[in-house]
């Protein structure tokens, strides 16, 4: 993405809309790592008077493109941003990250229909397909399958990849940007909620939760082991 500390206010920057606004807890540290958000604010997360909590406010968190939280809005906002690029003759790309559960919202499909109708090839949709939502597994609460076919039927070029493997993500994004059709692209990221932490992995009950000291230590240990294993595997595979 053409986005960083030097150009996060530039009209030419790429845009990323985190439609699954509850991912604020991972968005803020990334913005801090990029040097855009003040890292010193991170410990104030969720504290009274803090500029940021579970769902981030774009007026208070630098580098955030949109305040999200009520689900099903992000793709339409991205559509508007992509259309603005077209009208303003800008060549930035707009990325929208959706949760799979929020695809229950009708507004997602209103936006999908429009994105295909208006041939928005400068809009790239990513869906975090972790199969989990608050009340249970997506297929138990409200079945989404055949999910990829739904996007295809709405006029999208669809890719399905392992959402935990950076090389696959990078390659899919490169393909999406090189798309020569007049269809918008949707990348379905097959993931596991809580990947890397044994007791959280693929468990919808960890959509939202608070860790006690013991769990925190276990989670850190798991993540460390997970990272080591991933690096070892990447080196072995030469990626």
């Amino acid at each position: 993405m053409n986005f960083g500390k030097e150009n996060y206010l530039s009209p030419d920057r790429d845009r990323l809309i985190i439609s699954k606004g509850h991912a604020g807890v991972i968005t803020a540290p990334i913005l801090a790592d990029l040097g855009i958000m003040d890292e010193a604010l991170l410990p104030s997360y969720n504290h009274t008077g803090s500029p940021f909590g579970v769902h981030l406010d774009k007026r208070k968190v630098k580098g955030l493109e949109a305040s999200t939280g009520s689900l099903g809005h992000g793709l339409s906002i991205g559509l508007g941003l992509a259309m603005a690029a077209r009208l303003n003759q800008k060549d930035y790309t707009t990325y929208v990250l959706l949760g799979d559960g929020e695809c229950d919202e009708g507004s997602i499909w209103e936006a999908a229909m429009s994105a295909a109708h208006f041939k928005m090839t400068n809009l790239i949709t990513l869906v975090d397909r972790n199969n989990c939502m608050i009340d249970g597994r997506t297929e138990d609460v409200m079945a989404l399958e055949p999910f990829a076919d739904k996007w295809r039927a709405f006029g999208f070029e669809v890719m399905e990849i392992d959402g935990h493997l950076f090389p696959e993500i990078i390659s899919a994004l490169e393909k999406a940007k090189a798309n020569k059709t007049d269809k918008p692209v949707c990348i379905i990221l097959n993931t596991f909620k809580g990947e890397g932490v044994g007791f959280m992995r693929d468990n919808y009950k960890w959509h939202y939760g608070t860790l006690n000291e013991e769990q925190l230590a276990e989670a850190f240990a798991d993540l460390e082991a997970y990272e080591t294993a991933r690096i070892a595997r990447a080196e072995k595979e030469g990626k």
Partner: protein
Amino acid sequence: MKEYAMISEEARSTTEAFGKALTSLADEHKDVVALSADLAGSVKVTLMQKKYPERVFDVGIAEQNMVSMAAGLALGGLVPFAATFSVFLSLRDLDQLHTDICYQDLNVKMLGSHGGTSFSQAGSTHHALEDIAALRGMANLTIICPADYVETQLATKAAYEKYGPIYIRINRGTDYDVYNTESYGFEIGKSVLMNEGNDFTCIACGSMVHEALVAARSLKEKGVDLRVINMHTIKPIDKDAILKAMKETGGIVTAEDHNVIGGLGSAVSEVVAENGGAKKFKRLGVPDEFSIIGARKDILAHYEIDAAGIEKNVLALLNK
């Protein structure tokens, strides 16, 4: 009557006023874009569409997408006008309007036509009696309800000039002209004194401004001087005009084509209650019910928000 005000037999389409003002804004400003949801013709966005097809987006029957897309266009530096019927714009996409536009304080203008009972025979599903109530609690939002053709054009242009989310509510069909000039000093947030009088005050918006002026003419013959205030901006409300009316006149009646709960009458009553109360006070509008179906003039008469109804209520409040 003030020199700029009039009672006219001529009624003109306020949607056409909007469409023309929008097109003229589009002529002057490249950043003006417009959206509608399969009602581009009804709200006269088509006037702009004919001239600038690439800057007008009809998203089909998908109001939620329309409003969030407008938010995205505003984030991309454009000034979108999203227009459809009031009842859908204010209720169908209320969540999008709340989170994407008002919460982010984006520069999006929203035009709701077919306000109140103006889509008379279409029935209560197409009457907008709750739009102002639903939207008045939205922080950052300005709400304007123009009285006639001239004021709709001025409000549309003023909406472009003022940063931030703005909701303009107009009617289907035609509204009687209440101004004989464009130069009466339209300003968002500042009411217009239409008729001087110290016996009683009618604070009205939209179509009810004409009705109040007709009531004032009739009351004058009966020796009652009715002050008529056009409260075209419902949020932020012009407190000074209300306080003045409380102090200088025998009481206040409000008149609006809306549920009496949550609209103009409620907004005025909040100011009245926080400032010691009025000598007499009554809200005219649709009592808390879903409106009847019929010809518009019959509906207005039924709810006593036509000239005769306003006159009757003012006389009753004055014990005459």
